Structures are given as structure tokens and as C-alpha cells.
């Protein structure tokens, strides 16, 4: 039996411009993910939604979420 874990992270109250900037800044690194792990980023008006899906190591999932959120934070800081 394999366990699949889905995590959704939503960033609210972002301007459309900032949400698009963060999405574009992170997307090119969204390649060569470890097997069993995926990330999809969607931009809806004033919010950015990150969908993580993992059916392997939870450690990989936690580390990926950690790194992605750190990148979101730095992207927002440098444009402010």
C-alpha cells in the first residue's frame, strides 16, 4: 500500500502582478523533481495556489515545501 499526500498552500491578498511575478520566478526550477513528487502552481486573481503531491518520502515533500516557500518569501521581498 502506498500513501499519497497532497498539500495545498494558498497565498492570499497578493496583487495580480506580484502573484504572476512569483509564479514566473519559481516555475523554471519546477523541473527534475524527485520521482513520486510533483508541484503545480496556479494564479487566480489575487492569490497564488501551490499544489504539492507526494507518494514517496515525506521528508522530500517537507524539504520541497520548505524551499519553495523560502523562494516565495525572497521573491516578494526583493520586489518590495
Amino acid at each position, binding site marked *: 500500500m502506498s500513501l499519497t499526500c497532497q498539500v495545498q498552500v494558498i497565498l492570499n491578498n497578493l496583487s495580480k502582478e506580484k502573484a504572476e511575478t512569483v509564479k514566473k520566478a519559481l516555475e523554471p*526550477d519546477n523541473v527534475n523533481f524527485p520521482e513520486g513528487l510533483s508541484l503545480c502552481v496556479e494564479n487566480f486573481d489575487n492569490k497564488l495556489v501551490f499544489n504539492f503531491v507526494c507518494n514517496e518520502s515525506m521528508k522530500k515533500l517537507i524539504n520541497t515545501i520548505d*524551499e519553495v516557500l523560502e523562494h516565495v518569501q525572497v521573491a516578494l521581498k526583493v520586489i518590495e
Partner: protein
Amino acid sequence: MIGLGIESTAHTFSCAILEKNGNKGKILSDVRKIYRPPDGEGIHPREASRHHLEFSPKVLSQCLQEAKIKINELDIISYSAGPGLGPCLRVGAVVARSLASFYNIPIYPVNHALGHIELGKLLTGAKNPLVLLVSGGHTMILAFLNKQWRVFGETLDITLGQILDQFGRSIGFASPCGKNIEDLALSSSNYILLPYSVKGNDVSFSGLLSATKAIVSKSKADACFSLQETAFAMISEVVERALAFTGKKELLIVGGVAANKRLSEMLQKVCKRHTCKFFIAPAKYAGDCGSQICWTGLLESKVKQGVSLKDTFVTQSWRLDSVIVNY
């Protein structure tokens, strides 16, 4: 034309702003923050990237202030896209992409090794040199031919910077250890025979590292002296052979280890024998810095309009000899 360069391949997070007029470049600001691992330990990629994440907004802001430039006055943004440590490279790329996207500025991925060479040429005035690139990430002898830097010798295992750092850490120094080893080596003249490994025009340092660790219990100073003499003699031999083969009349040393005076002394003698001009990148800009990335980006902007954001990759093992130089 004004550019911002972002460097984040390993220990250093740096932003620099340069102004380019024709073929001349002027450094308006170059701000760095360097990750220092605990004494005796090497770089941990994720810890280094966390350091870069923490300091990148401050470094950027100080860089803009010192250059008296606003972001919307920038004509291009360039970032180091490799080779380097993945987590560290991604921080620089995210900062560059965010600015490029939000302020609609053309963006250029730059090869870090090429950056060392181009900045070295700008600051020394070397025109067509044989290049010795020696740092923690590289040990290469290079010459330019038909739009590419060709490798005329390199390390088969660890780099010159790595052997100095790994040995230095084993005797308790903090990375980067080159300066400490150089200082300690000055207090000895007792050479202990160590393995000298030159294969064709390539060098191998891993056996030398193990052998140096094995003699350190007798005297740290003798070990440092013998390590430098052996490693630098190996480098000098392959540089001399490459000079003879290529017929180049200029030698340029770039990279963090270029700051070592004993290495310069040995290579100056090689140049004298070959009536070759000797150039060395100024110590302040020999190691990793934003200026190397910015200047290379500005040079590339002569022939390219920048790349689309979706193509702004990072590649941990991006070899210099695969880069086409069109400018």
C-alpha cells in the same frame, strides 16, 4: 548601458552594478555576503542557500544604494546559472527572475567560469591570454579558439581550492583556508616528498591530499609548505606545456586561488621563460563576485536580447567549454 549581476554559486551571495560604455566597463558597486561554515567543516549547500535567502534583499538594496541607481534604471539583469551548488544557484535565479519579471528587464543566465575570465580580462587588459582558472570549483587551463574556450588541462578529481580547503579544515582552519595555509607555509622551508601527479596535461590532487594529511603530525608548517610546493609545481608544469603548445603570449590567472603569492611567483618564472606577459586578477575581484556575472551579461547583451523567463535555467554542472561566445 547599466547592468545588475547576481552571483550565488557557492559561499558568496553578491550583487554588483556595472556601467558599460563601448568596450569599457566601470564597477559602480559590488556588495557581498559570504557564508562561513563552522571551523573544520565544509560548505553545506542547503545551509549556504538559507544564508543567501536571508541576506539577498539586504545585499541587493545596499548594492543599488552604493551605485546610486534605481531598479528601473537597469538595462539588464544577469545571474550565475552554473556551475555551482543547486540550492545556492536557485536563490540567485529566483532573485533575478523576480526583478526581471516585475520590472520588465531583460535577463541573462551567465556561466560562472566565463564570468571569472571576462572580468579578469576587463580588469587586467589581457587581450588573448592562456587562462588559468583556479578556485574551489575549478582547476582549468583554457585558451579561446573559434568562439569557445577550449580546455588545455584540468583536474581529474578535486580542484586546487578544494585540496587547500580540505587539508586546511583537517588541521582546524575555517574555509576558505588558502590564506592560512599560505601564511603557515612561509614559516617552513623543509620540503617533505609528496606524490606529484600530472597525467598528460591534467592534474590529480586526491592522492596528494591523503599523503599531506599523513605527514601533518610531524609539522603543520612543513606539511603546508610541501603541499603548496607540490601542487603549485604540478600546475606550473601543465601551464608551461600549454603555453608552449598554444604559443600564447599572455597568461591570466583568475579564481580565488589567484590571490596566493607563491603560485604567482612560480607562474611568473614560467612566463619569463616563454617571454609571455603575466596578468593576475586583482585580489578583490579574483574570487566570486557579482561583477563577473554583470560584466559577462553586459557583453552578451551586445548580441542577444536576453532570454525568456521560462528558459532561465540553472545547471549545476554547466561546463565552460560548452558555451558559445559570440560577442
